[in-house]
């Protein structure tokens, strides 16, 4: 059987499995659930996937992964995304910290930590950003000082997704403030139940509380929880951000599908004609449709490149840049079409089905995980080979 045939068969198998199981964990089943209940549902879904060989598809089977290919992972993600499943709680955990553990931790640590994470029994978070270190990650201040065989951590992290539900986390700390900022960092993993860690959810503009402040007060970490060299933490942090070779994302930026806007535009209007016959509405829909279709083809080609053993290419930045801005624009347009009733919004409205919720949340999308500005810099520097911005702190001691 050729690779292509195998992938077609895999997709079929994934589809069948999902159509059998996913409905009991998605859609209306989740309506009205508290976050805690939704998380519990998500944990059950994750365990079922692990038992059926659909969890952590690219990780080795010895740890409970599926030992599959990047293409299989992409195929399963595409198919899984058709359902509205409670998978968000595991996207960080299994996307970055756990693969990093698989790369950097020792055998004992891998055996202890990877299987329960894949089964959804334990969740990992990623403690990187800080109040004064967002786009500029290397400016982080959380301090780790030597204490006997281990380290004491003091300081604060911010924007840590799902920290409130996490059992463990990977953390970058400053171990030497006297050297230039990138050189003084070291990377650890930490038990989130350690004495001295406190987590405070941060309420976002939409009312969501999926990110947190995490405070470290004399938190002790054994040196064998260090991943990589002392002073080598920035390298491991970059590895963490790059370790997912390819992540399937939604061209509509997880907002309502464009077909919902088209339906709306066919229903409302000014009394004389439907909004779909208004040229400005048509222009916006056409623009969004071209963008989303272009992104879908870019995705297909990236998966094809993976299947040929190549690299998926650097288009992820384009995808995030365009889909975030588009969701904001499309959301506003949909409310314009609704007129006075466009103001309607209730806390908890699903982003996928409510344009007002999608619009309200969209600024977060344009900032989290790389602001529009950072993404444009990434494209300009990494793809177009234009020079880096001026960095006055380059080579200077951090303190």
């Amino acid at each position: 059987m050729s690779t292509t045939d195998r992938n077609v068969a895999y997709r079929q198998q994934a589809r069948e499995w999902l159509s059998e199981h996913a409905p009991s964990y998605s859609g209306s089943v989740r309506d009205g659930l508290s976050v805690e209940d939704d998380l519990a549902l998500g944990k059950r879904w994750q365990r079922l996937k692990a038992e059926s060989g659909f969890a952590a598809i690219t990780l080795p089977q010895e740890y409970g992964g599926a030992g599959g290919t990047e293409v299989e992972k992409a195929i399963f993600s595409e198919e899984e995304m058709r359902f509205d499943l409670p998978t968000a709680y595991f996207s960080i955990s299994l996307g970055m910290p756990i693969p990093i553990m698989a790369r950097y931790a020792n055998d004992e640590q891998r055996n202890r930590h990877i299987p329960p994470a894949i089964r959804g029994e334990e969740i990992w978070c990623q403690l990187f950003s800080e109040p004064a270190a967002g786009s500029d990650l290397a400016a982080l201040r959380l301090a780790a000082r030597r204490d006997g065989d281990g380290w004491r951590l003091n300081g604060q992290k911010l924007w840590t997704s799902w920290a409130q539900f996490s059992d463990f986390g990977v953390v970058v700390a400053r171990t030497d403030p006297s050297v230039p900022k990138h050189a003084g960092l070291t990377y650890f993993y930490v038990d989130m139940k350690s004495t001295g860690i406190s987590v405070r959810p941060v309420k976002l503009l939409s009312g969501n509380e999926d990110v947190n402040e995490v405070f470290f007060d004399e938190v002790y970490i054994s040196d064998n929880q260090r991943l990589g060299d002392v002073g080598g933490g920035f390298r491991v942090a970059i590895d963490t951000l790059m370790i997912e070779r390819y992540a399937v994302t939604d061209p509509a930026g997880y907002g309502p599908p464009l077909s919902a806007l088209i339906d709306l535009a066919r229903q409302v209007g000014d009394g004389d004609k439907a909004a779909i016959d208004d040229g400005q509405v048509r222009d916006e829909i056409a623009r969004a449709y071209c963008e989303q279709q272009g992104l879908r083809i870019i995705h297909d080609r990236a998966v094809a490149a993976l299947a040929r053993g190549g690299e998926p290419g650097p288009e992820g930045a384009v995808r995030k840049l365009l889909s975030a801005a588009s969701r904001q624009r499309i959301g506003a347009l949909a409310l314009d079409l609704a007129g006075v009733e466009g103001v309607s919004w209730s806390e908890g409205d699903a982003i996928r089905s409510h344009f007002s919720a999608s619009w309200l949340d969209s600024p977060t999308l344009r900032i989290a995980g790389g602001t529009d500005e950072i993404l444009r810099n990434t494209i300009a520097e990494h793809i177009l080979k234009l020079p880096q911005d001026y960095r006055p702190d380059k080579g200077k001691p951090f303190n």
Partner: protein
Amino acid sequence: MTATFDLDADQVMIRDQAHEVLAEYSTLSRLCALLENKEGFDTALWNGTAELGWPGAVVAEAFGGHDIGWTTVCMLAEEIGRVCGAIPHSSTAVVADYLGTLASGHPDREYLADIAAGKVIATIGICEKGTNLLPAQPSVRFDGTRLYGTKAAVAFGAVASHALIYVRSSPGSVGLVLADLNDPSVMRQPHPALDDSRGYADLIFDGTPARLCENGRQNSAGWLLDRAAIAYACEQLGGAQACLDIACDYARTRTAFGQSIGRFQAIKHALADVYAAIEIARGNVYHALSPDGLANLPVAAATARLASTHAYELAAKTAIQVHGGIGVTWEGGLHHHYRRSRVLALELGSPIGWRNQLIDHLAGAAA
């Protein structure tokens, strides 16, 4: 930065008072609380402004008002917009302004005294669902003495004492009525919205006593909407300027990559574009308040509204973007402007409707 208004000494005094009362009441923590407690508006701020006589600003002295003019009302709207003040200043002023145009014998003129005394909180319910400004068939029916039907998503409908409602009466006929919202026949259904500090409600009328409130203009509701658009444009302009000021302050002080983020052209140029949009909005608002603008009200109101809507929405989202993560937090507070910029763009009808009003007039004039 350029001021919108050329103020006389009285107006400067009024503005300084406004700064005080707004700074006292319209704080970030109170704004957050308003979204959470669902009170629907800022009672303390309203009472504070009522003490200063703002509700009666355009009411004739004969009714106990201050009669300090439409421009002053709009200047106060700008100050309220600057702090995201959650009070129905503009709608109350517009209703007072409208009642003042009624024929001298019209009984609704009596409400002017109540407005001046701060006893009436007024809102307007004209536009409905869809992209047109005036609905061809308003959803509330007036049978000559009573009102029936629902006006959806009326701003401050949950807290106002009276509402000027656009209704259909005899077949094919439309008009305005002033409804007493405290009448037992009125049910107010809270309407959860993007900005819950503005007490949206569906007003459900079931036999509410009323009488026509027409000033003899051919399109009184259109006229009212145009006047309201100008007051709203001032709120939007104030909000936009506040967003720009806040973002510039942040850009000067926040550092990343070893320098203040205001040194990055991505930030500088985005804020320069906001400045340009605000100056264009300011020009159009100023025009709408001038004799030339008032003489060509539908065009002047539409341009003031379109330009100010654009400026406020651009300013609010740019301010958030400049702030990065802190910009999208609840406590960071910029979301108040972000929400407000959107609801102010919708409350007086879809931007598409205003675009059409402008072009219909321009194309008609070119014809």
